[in-house]
């Protein structure tokens, strides 16, 4: 019940934010901040309150479409809670990051942000496959609008590409969902979309592989993994800062979440057979994403490609089929949420100040804005995988897990951390270090508002980096119940 209320509250907040535009241009974003802040406090309260005996923090189950046995079933376990809390937090970050960037349509902008997040919360808590798909799609439209309306020069192309990729892969998933339901129907005579009911469905292995692929393609596209990643650089580059933050911080995680929650547990055998390929995709993503990141001259594009590389670790970890890998993937989800969101926020801040994302037009920015430089440095280092910060924990665990399963893949993937160093430091060099660009007279440094958000993200990364136990405990409860680990 409370979960549905939260989703509705976010949706309602969106409407309120839109309507409040008439009051002042600050009103919509205050509404957003209050909404996300309340959501964050609520998540924290749930966390402190602890789970019930079944490991759940909240749950509900209402009939929705009786004809197909579709339920409005929402549940929040440890992993969901973790992701929802991250969602709320990054919601605040997103609002702050686009504070000065948006010049018109403030109300509608916040409306879209809130609606994306409502969809995301739904995705993270849905316990009915159709409901999941429903939310999966619901978050698309506002995201599309964020890019299409407030994006940069190539927004038409980028937003369309984003939508097409996710939607087409989503159709495959829908197809697979329906096929799964009918296989279940054939076996039990019951039509249901309930996740739990479908979990143990006996499927002909050949069909199972195809159905699993239906899910996998959708999630891999969202993740994204090579070779279906090419929407991401365009979408990120063109999106407004808040869009990039949400996209990188949260939306990509829905892909990872989908793999962990659906693709693998629903088809354990097929997934196990597919593990090698998935790990291969992960490895290729790590290396190819890294190499592509280095190729870029556009700040945001570089960060976007680096996301692809980081998401490769998630594939690698999940398909290692052991606790280490799975936990590594989950920690990576959280840590990457912070580090990449921060880097995109930085990219947005620079673009807003210099009206360019081209690093060849930057250089020596540290002189003008040491705080921004320091922050960039911190998050670059985090994403390079420095021990003591969250990303390291995730990537190390993922690799460690993967190594148990397939040492060769893990070894090749480990080379990715060298590539990460190459592009990460090159990013730093071309933007903030080096000879100051004489064309740039001055650049406003970060103020209190930006710094407080940055500080929060830094704290988050350090927290996850030196004491990831909180995250691990939350996700552990979920991992144990998925029933896919030996």
């Amino acid at each position, binding site marked *: 019940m409370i979960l549905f209320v939260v989703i509705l509250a976010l949706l309602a907040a969106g409407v309120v934010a839109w309507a409040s535009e008439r009051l002042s241009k600050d009103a919509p974003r205050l509404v957003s901040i209050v909404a996300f802040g309340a959501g964050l406090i609520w998540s924290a309260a749930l966390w402190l309150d602890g789970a019930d005996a079944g490991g759940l923090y909240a749950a509900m189950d209402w009939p929705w479409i009786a004809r197909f046995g579709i339920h409005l079933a929402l549940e929040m376990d440890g992993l969901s809670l973790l992701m929802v809390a991250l969602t709320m937090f990054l919601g605040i970050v997103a609002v702050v990051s686009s504070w000065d960037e948006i010049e*018109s349509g403030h109300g509608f902008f916040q409306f879209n942000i809130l609606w994306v997040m409502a969809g995301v919360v739904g995705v993270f808590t849905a316990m009915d496959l159709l409901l999941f798909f429903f939310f999966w799609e619901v978050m698309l439209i506002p995201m599309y609008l964020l890019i299409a309306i407030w994006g940069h020069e190539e927004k038409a192309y980028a937003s*369309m590409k984003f939508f097409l990729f996710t939607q087409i892969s989503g159709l*495959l998933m829908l197809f697979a969902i329906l096929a799964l339901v009918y296989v279940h129907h054939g076996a039990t005579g019951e039509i249901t979309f309930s996740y739990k009911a479908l979990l143990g469905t006996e499927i002909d292995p050949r069909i199972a592989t195809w159905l699993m692929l239906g899910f996998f393609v959708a999630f891999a596209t969202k993740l994204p993994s090579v070779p279906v990643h090419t929407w991401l650089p365009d979408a990120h580059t063109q999106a407004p800062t808040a869009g990039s933050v949400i996209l990188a911080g949260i939306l990509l995680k829905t892909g990872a979440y989908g793999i962990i929650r659906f693709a693998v547990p629903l088809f354990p055998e097929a997934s196990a057979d597919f593990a090698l390929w998935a790990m291969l995709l992960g490895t290729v993503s790590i290396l190819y994403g890294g190499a592509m990141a280095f190729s870029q001259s556009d700040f945001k594009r570089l960060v976007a490609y680096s996301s692809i590389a980081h998401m490769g670790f998630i594939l690698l970890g999940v398909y290692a089929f052991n606790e280490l890998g799975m936990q590594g993937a989950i920690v990576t989800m959280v840590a990457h949420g912070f580090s990449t969101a921060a880097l995109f926020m930085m990219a947005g801040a620079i673009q807003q100040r210099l009206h360019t994302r081209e690093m060849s037009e930057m250089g020596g920015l540290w002189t003008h804005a040491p705080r921004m430089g320091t922050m960039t440095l911190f998050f670059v280092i985090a994403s390079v995988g420095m021990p003591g910060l969250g990303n390291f924990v995730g990537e190390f665990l993922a690799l460690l897990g993967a190594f148990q399963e397939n040492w060769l893949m893990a070894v090749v993937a480990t080379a990715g951390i060298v590539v990460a160093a190459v592009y990460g430091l090159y990013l730093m060099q071309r933007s903030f270090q080096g000879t100051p660009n004489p064309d740039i007279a001055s650049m406003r440094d970060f103020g209190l508002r930006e710094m407080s958000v940055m500080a929060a993200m830094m704290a988050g990364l350090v927290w996850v980096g030196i004491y990831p136990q909180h995250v691990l405990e939350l996700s552990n409860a979920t991992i144990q119940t998925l029933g896919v680990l030996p």
Partner: protein
Amino acid sequence: MSAAEVWTLSAAEVWALAPYLALAGGIALLLLAVAALRSHRLAFWGAIATLAIPLAFVPTALGGGTQIVDDVLEIDGYALFFFVLFSLAAIATAVLSARYLGSRATHRQEFYLLLTTATLGAAVTAGASHFATFLMGLEVLSISLYAMIAYPEEGHPPLEAAAKYLILSGAASSTMLFGMALIYATSGSLNFEAAGDIAAGERNVLVLGQAMLLVGVFFKLSLVPFHMWTPDVYQGAPAPVTGFVATVSKGAVFAVLLRYAIDADLLSSPAVGIVIAVIAVLSMVVGNILALLQTNLKRLLAYSSIAHLGYLMIALVVAGTAAGRALGVESGLFYVAGYFLMTLAAFGVVTVLSNETDDADQISGYDGLLWRRPAIAAVLAAAALALAGIPLTVGFFAKFYLVAAGVGNAAWGLVWALIVGSAIGIYYYLRIVFAMTKRPEDDRPLEARRAPWEGLATVVLLGVLIVLLGIYPSPVIELIRELGGP
């Protein structure tokens, strides 16, 4: 056969016929009224009453169960469902047309008469269980449509559209008639069910007859390769009439086709199955591809309707099998209902935005509509997204129903074609949405033409229904299930 027998209709039959009789009687009265008093207001309200009053008789007609009147008209839940649907669509068309035609024709009274006769024709077609009523219903509808399309008193496009439609439709009707004659020649009865009971040896002629009948029907449904008239007619016809053609005309033909397919066991012939499948796949693919870069909204919707009717063929194919009958019919009816809403909304928006002389049919004319006319833009966006099959709109559940039906009956090829078609389709539907979100390039004051309130109310109502049924479709689903199949 005594004279007394001629007029014997049982009370139950009379009650079943009541909606039709009311409509027919209303038309007669309206004709007299219009002839006596040439008042637009009278004609308009008369038409509304003529269309609305019969609806009051529908519940009683439903209560009487299935009544087969004179062996030619089967009045059951199925027929009455379409009766209601057509009447409502006609009312919407009347409301939308009132002001639209004001600047295009000096006399508008005849239009309402034509609209009501067309509705009567469509309603009869949907109830036809016999070739005579099939033919008459369809032609009453078609003849009315020719005149409605050519209704505006100036300009080339309406005339050209009407001429093309008339000639091609005439040829198609002839083909269909010839087919009927061949079927009659083999079966000896003009009743639908008779064609199902043919001995195997006679199939040759029967199949030729069915093929020719289907060709005629395919033409009316604008399936590839009998689709070419569609964009020209849609573009040339007055916008509200286009909406009517796209919905009521298609709906009526689909209704009778579905009934015929089930009564005559059409799909028992593998050849017919192949024909329908091929035509359906072609329609999905070709329709979507033709719409891809279309710049004229009416043409775009025309091509999209080609694809949608292709999708609808899945329902036909599924309903044609004994196992899938119930699901197939349900999915077909739900799809038609959803399609009515989306299409009427889309053409309603075009109508509302059209000025005294020109239709608002260039997509470029929709640039920035979201900022000028948020409500109308939202309706069009909802319609476009519904046509694309995105959740939160009725279009999603419509498509979901079809895919469920297809998957449930292993119509894999058709489902795949639907997925491919939808994938292509997303592109052009989103183009509409994107155009509306464009920011005005310069600071010119945003022109805000006054929208007629009744038109606005209509499209907003349609938009709200699209979304409401996109969130909670159960009532309609349950209704359709209660009505049962033909």
